[in-house]
C-alpha cells in the first residue's frame, strides 16, 4: 500500500461551476428510459454503465477497474432552462438585495468598497468574528440604499416568496432564474468579497443550476428483490422525474408552446430539482413513492440522528462487540464480567504466535471455531487469512503454526473487555472488566457495579467491546478498570459499594447479638477463601462462639483505624462517644471492629466519608476492590444462613399504632375544616404573594403532609427491632420511613403538579363529591394504606399521581439527553495542558488552572489540603468523641 505523505491542513467548500460539472462528467444523460426490454441499462440513461460498476466481476466502462477499485463516475444533465438551487436561496436573496438591478454592482460607494475590502482582508484571519460582523454590517448598509451609488438608478424592493420565487416590487415583477443568473454573473469579484463570498470557489451565478450533476450509481444502488424485481433507489427515481420534466420542457420550447404552458413546465422542473435536493421544504408538497412513503433525497441522507453525520460519521456500528441482557452474579469479582460461551466463541482476540505460547496456540487451533477455547481465524506470515470453519485438517494447520503467525482466538478467562450501558452519561458508564466465560445467554456482573452503570436487571441490556491491540488493551486496563473508578470525580466518594442485601447482611452479621458456632464460622470463612488462622472465640463456654464483628474484622487490614457514627445513631439510639451503650458508633482499631454495626454509611455506595472510603484512600483501590469482593460474599453467605425476607405481617400496623395514627389523621381533618371555615368566613391571612385560595391550599397541604409524617412516626415507633422491613429502612438497605408509612398506615396526599388534585368535573373531581367540597378526601388524600387496601376512589387519585410521575421521567430523560449532547459537543475537545491550564484545540484558554486549584477531587480531603481529624484517627486510632 502506498501511503501519501500529504496532510490535510484544511477543508474549503465551494460550488461546482457548470464547466466543472461538464468536465468531471463521463456522459451526458439524455433519456428518462433506464432499462431496455431485456433489463440492460440504456446508454444515456441514469444507470448508464459508464457511471461505474455495479455488479461484482464486471469491469468499469470508464476506468476499467473492478467493483472494489472503481470510485464511480459522475454524469451530467443539460437543463432546458436554469433552475434555482434551493440550498442557496438565502444567499441569492441577499445578493439581489445588496446589489443594483441595473449595473449589478454592490450598493456601496466605490471608495468604501476598497476600504472595506482592505479592512476585511486584515480582519479575516485573526478576528474571524469581527470579520463576519463587518460583512453583516456591509450587507445591511447595501440593502438599505435607495439609489445605486454607481449608476444612480432607483432601487426596487426584492421580495422572496417561499420557497424560491423572487419578486421585484415595482420593477420587473417576478424574476425568472435566467434573469437572476444574468444578474448574478455581472457582480464583480471585488464586490462579492466584501459581501462575504469567495468568488474563486463560489461565483454566485453557479447557484442557479443549468447543468445538473448526476451522481455515480454507487451512491444510489438498485437492489434486486427475491421476486427478481429490481427496486431503484429514491435518488434514481427522482433523477428520472427530473429528466422527464426536462424533456417535456425542451419539447415545449422547440415547438414554440404558449408562454403559460412553458411556465408551468418550468415550475414543474423547479419542483423536481428542489425536492431532489431537499424533500422536507416548508410549503412544498413532499415527493412520495407509490407506497405513499416520502422519498429520501439528498438532504434527508445527511440530516438528523440516523443521517450520514450523526449516524455514520460521529457514531457508527463497530466490530468486535456484543450486546445482550444483563443479570446479577454475586460470585464474580467487581472487576469481572460473565460472558456467555456463545459470545466468547464469536468475539476474538488476535494473538501473535511466539515460541512461548506456541503450544497454547496450537491447542486453540486444534479446538477450532466450534469448541471453546478455540480460534476462528489464522493469519499466516504472508497476511493470508484462513477461516477455520473451512479448514479441513486443523491438526495439520496446528502443526504448521510457528512464530510469525497470528491466531484470532476465542475470548478466554482473564481477557480484558470494555463494558458499557447507555445512556453513557459519565465516565463510569464504560469500564474495563476481566472476562469470565460462563454458561447461559446473559452478561453477568457484580451487584456493586450497578450504581455507576445505573443498571438493574428488569431487562437491561449492555454492550461489550474487545480491544484488538496490545496497546489498546494496556491503555484500557490502565484507565478504565472497574476498581480505578470506585471513587468518582463527581464527589470524591466511592460510587461502587454495598447496596441492598449487602447492607442488611452486613448489619445482621455485625449485630452485638450475633454469635456464630465453629461450623458457621468455617462455612463463612470458606466462602471467602480465608486461609489464615481462626481467631480466639469470644465465648469459650458452654460452646465456643465467635461474634460477627470478629469474623468481619478478619477482612480489614491490621493497621486500619476508623471512628464514625453510623446511620442508626439517631434519636434515642444516638451515640457520640465510644462509651455508648447502643452500639451505633463504629469503632475500628488496628483492623478490628470494637463497637458499632455496619450499615449504609459504613459500606454503602455513594457514601463519601464512609469507612470504606477511608479504607480505599488509605490502602488504595486494589485493597478496596479485594475488600469488597470478600466482604460482600461474606455478607450474602450470612444473610443466606439466617434467612432474610419480608411478609405481609411485617407491615401490619400495631393496634396502638392504628389508634394513634387514626387520631392524628382525624385531628388533621379537624384542622383542615377549621382552615376551610376561616377561608369561607374571610378570616384567613393570605401568604405574601398568594391569593386567598392559594393560601388555603398551601396551608391544607402543609397540615396533611405533617399528619402523614406524624401518623408514620407514631406507627414506626411500635415496630420491632427485628422486623426486616424496619431493618432495611434503618440500615439504608432499601426503603425509608415514608415507604413504611405508606405500606402500613396511610398513603397520604396524592398530587398533580404539586397541587391537590382538582381537575375533573366543575368544582369537584368526581361526581361522588359535592360541588365545591374542599375536604381532604375529596381532593386526593388517601387515608388507606397499601396494607389495608385502597378504596376505588383512592385508587383513582393514586393513579393520577402515579401517571404524573411516569410522564415526568419520560420528559426529563429526553430533555437531559439533549442537554448532554450539547454539552459534550461543546466540551469534548478541551484538554489539560502540562501547565494545568484547560485549553481548546485552537489553543484558547478556558481555565487558567483546572478547577481553580488543579486538584483531582478523587484525591483530595474534601477541598482541604489536609484532613487533620482523619490523620489523627488514622495514626492514633482513638478520639474520645466524634
Amino acid at each position: 500500500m502506498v501511503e501519501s505523505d500529504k496532510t490535510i491542513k484544511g477543508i474549503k467548500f465551494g460550488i461546482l461551476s457548470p464547466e466543472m460539472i461538464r468536465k468531471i462528467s463521463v456522459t451526458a444523460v439524455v433519456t428518462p428510459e433506464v432499462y431496455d426490454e431485456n433489463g440492460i441499462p440504456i446508454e444515456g440513461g441514469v444507470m448508464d454503465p459508464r457511471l461505474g460498476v455495479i455488479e461484482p466481476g464486471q469491469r468499469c466502462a470508464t476506468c476499467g477497474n473492478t467493483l472494489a477499485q472503481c470510485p464511480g463516475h459522475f454524469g451530467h444533465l443539460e437543463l432546458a432552462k436554469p433552475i434555482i438551487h434551493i440550498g442557496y436561496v438565502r444567499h441569492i436573496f441577499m445578493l439581489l438585495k445588496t446589489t443594483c438591478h441595473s449595473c449589478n454592482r454592490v450598493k456601496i460607494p466605490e471608495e468604501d468598497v476598497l476600504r472595506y475590502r482592505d479592512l476585511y482582508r486584515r480582519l479575516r484571519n485573526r478576528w474571524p468574528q469581527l470579520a463576519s460582523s463587518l460583512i453583516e454590517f456591509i450587507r445591511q448598509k447595501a440593502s438599505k440604499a435607495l439609489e445605486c451609488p454607481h449608476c444612480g438608478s432607483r432601487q426596487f424592493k426584492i421580495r422572496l416568496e417561499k420557497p424560491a420565487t423572487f419578486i421585484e416590487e415595482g420593477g420587473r415583477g417576478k424574476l425568472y432564474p435566467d434573469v437572476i443568473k444574468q444578474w448574478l454573473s455581472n457582480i464583480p469579484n471585488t464586490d462579492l468579497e466584501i459581501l462575504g463570498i469567495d468568488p474563486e470557489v463560489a461565483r454566485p451565478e453557479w447557484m442557479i443550476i443549468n447543468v445538473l450533476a448526476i451522481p455515480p450509481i454507487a451512491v444510489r444502488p438498485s437492489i434486486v428483490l427475491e421476486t427478481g424485481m429490481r427496486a431503484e433507489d429514491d435518488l434514481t427515481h427522482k433523477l428520472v422525474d427530473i429528466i422527464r420534466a426536462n424533456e417535456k420542457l425542451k419539447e415545449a420550447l422547440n415547438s414554440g408552446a404558449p408562454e403559460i404552458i412553458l411556465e408551468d413546465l418550468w415550475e414543474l422542473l423547479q419542483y423536481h430539482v428542489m425536492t431532489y435536493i431537499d424533500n422536507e421544504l416548508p410549503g412544498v408538497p413532499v415527493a412520495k413513492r407509490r407506497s405513499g412513503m416520502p422519498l429520501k433525497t439528498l438532504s434527508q441522507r445527511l440530516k438528523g440522528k440516523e443521517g450520514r453525520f450523526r449516524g455514520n460519521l460521529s457514531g457508527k456500528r463497530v466490530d468486535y462487540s456484543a450486546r445482550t441482557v444483563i443479570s446479577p452474579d454475586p460470585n464474580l469479582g467487581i472487576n469481572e464480567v460473565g460472558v456467555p460461551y456463545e459470545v466468547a466463541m464469536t468475539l476474538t482476540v488476535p494473538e501473535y504466535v511466539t515460541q512461548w505460547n506456541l503450544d497454547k496456540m496450537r491447542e486453540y487451533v486444534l479446538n477450532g471455531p466450534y469448541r471453546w477455547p478455540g480460534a476462528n481465524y489464522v493469519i499466516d506470515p504472508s497476511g493470508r487469512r484462513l477461516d477455520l470453519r473451512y479448514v479441513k485438517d486443523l491438526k495439520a494447520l496446528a502443526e504448521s503454526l510457528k512464530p510469525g503467525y497470528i491466531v484470532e482466538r476465542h475470548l478466554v478467562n482473564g481477557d480484558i473487555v470494555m463494558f458499557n450501558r447507555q445512556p453513557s452519561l459519565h465516565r463510569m458508564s464504560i469500564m474495563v472488566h476481566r472476562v469470565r466465560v460462563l454458561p447461559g445467554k446473559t452478561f453477568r456482573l457484580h451487584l456493586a457495579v450497578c450504581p455507576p452503570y445505573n443498571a438493574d436487571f428488569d431487562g437491561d441490556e449492555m454492550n461489550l467491546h474487545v480491544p484488538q491491540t496490545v496497546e489498546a488493551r494496556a491503555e484500557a486496563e490502565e484507565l478504565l478498570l472497574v476498581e480505578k473508578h470506585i471513587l468518582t470525580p463527581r464527589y470524591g466518594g466511592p460510587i461502587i459499594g454495598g447496596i441492598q442485601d449487602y447492607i442488611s447482611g452486613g448489619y445482621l452479621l455485625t449485630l452485638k447479638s450475633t454469635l456464630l458456632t465453629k461450623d458457621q464460622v468455617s462455612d463463612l470463612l470458606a466462602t471467602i477463601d480465608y486461609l489464615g488462622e481462626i481467631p480466639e472465640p469470644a465465648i469459650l463456654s458452654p460452646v465456643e462462639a465467635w461474634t460477627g464483628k470478629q469474623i468481619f474484622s478478619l477482612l480489614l487490614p491490621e493497621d486500619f483505624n476508623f471512628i464514625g457514627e453510623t446511620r442508626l445513631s439517631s434519636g434515642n439510639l444516638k451515640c457520640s462517644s465510644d462509651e455508648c451503650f447502643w452500639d451505633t458508633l463504629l469503632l475500628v482499631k488496628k483492623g478490628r471492629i470494637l463497637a458499632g454495626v455496619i450499615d449504609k454509611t459504613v459500606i454503602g455506595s455513594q457514601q463519601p466519608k464512609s469507612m470504606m472510603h477511608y479504607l480505599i484512600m488509605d490502602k488504595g483501590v486494589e485493597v478496596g476492590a479485594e475488600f469488597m469482593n470478600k466482604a460482600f460474599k461474606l455478607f450474602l453467605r450470612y444473610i443466606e444462613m439466617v434467612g432474610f425476607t419480608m411478609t405481609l405481617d411485617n407491615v401490619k400496623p400495631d393496634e396502638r399504632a392504628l389508634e394513634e395514627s387514626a387520631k392524628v389523621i382525624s385531628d388533621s381533618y379537624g384542622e383542615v375544616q377549621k382552615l376551610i371555615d376561616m377561608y369561607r368566613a374571610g378570616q384567613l391571612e393570605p401568604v405574601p404573594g398568594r391569593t386567598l385560595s392559594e393560601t388555603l391550599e398551601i396551608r391544607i397541604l402543609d397540615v396533611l403532609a405533617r399528619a402523614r409524617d406524624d401518623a408514620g412516626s407514631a406507627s414506626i415507633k411500635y415496630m420491632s427491632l427485628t422486623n426486616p422491613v424496619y431493618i432495611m429502612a434503618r440500615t439504608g438497605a432499601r426503603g425509608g420511613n415514608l415507604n413504611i408509612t405508606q405500606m402500613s398506615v396511610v398513603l397520604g396526599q396524592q398530587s398533580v403538579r404539586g397541587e391537590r388534585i382538582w381537575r375533573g368535573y366543575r368544582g369537584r373531581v368526581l361526581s361522588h363529591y359535592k360541588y365545591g367540597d374542599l375536604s381532604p378526601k375529596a381532593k386526593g388524600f388517601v387515608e388507606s394504606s397499601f396494607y389495608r387496601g385502597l378504596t376505588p376512589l383512592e385508587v383513582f387519585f393514586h393513579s393520577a399521581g402515579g401517571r404524573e410521575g411516569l410522564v415526568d421521567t419520560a420528559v426529563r430523560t429526553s430533555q437531559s439527553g439533549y442537554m448532554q449532547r450539547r454539552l459534550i459537543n461543546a466540551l469534548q475537545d478541551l484538554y489539560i495542558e502540562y501547565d494545568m491550564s484547560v485549553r481548546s484545540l485552537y489553543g484558547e484558554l478556558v481555565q487558567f488552572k483546572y478547577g481553580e486549584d488543579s486538584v483531582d477531587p478523587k484525591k483530595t480531603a474534601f477541598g482541604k489540603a489536609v484532613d487533620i481529624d482523619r490523620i489523627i484517627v488514622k495514626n492514633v486510632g482513638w478520639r474520645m468523641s466524634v
Partner: protein
Amino acid sequence: MSDKKKRIEEKILEHELVPKHELLTREEALGVLRELGIRPEQLPWIRASDPIAKLLGAKPGDIIRIVRKSPTAGTSVAYRFVVVG
C-alpha cells in the same frame, strides 16, 4: 448619564462580590502572554464597554488581571483580553 447611575457604577469595584480587577502595563501583559505561551486573542475576552473595563479605562488590546478569592485555592488569577464592543 445621570449622577445617580454614575455613582452606582463607580461603586462596582467596592462591592464584595466583585473580585479585584487591575489593568496590566505593557511589560506585565507581555510577561503574562509569554508565561502562558499564547497570543492575546486566545485569552477570554471582555468588551471595552463592560462597566469594569470602562472604570479601569481599559482600551481594546489591553489585558485585565482578575484576582478572585477561592474557597479551595485561596486566590485564583484570571486574565481578560479587552476587545472592541
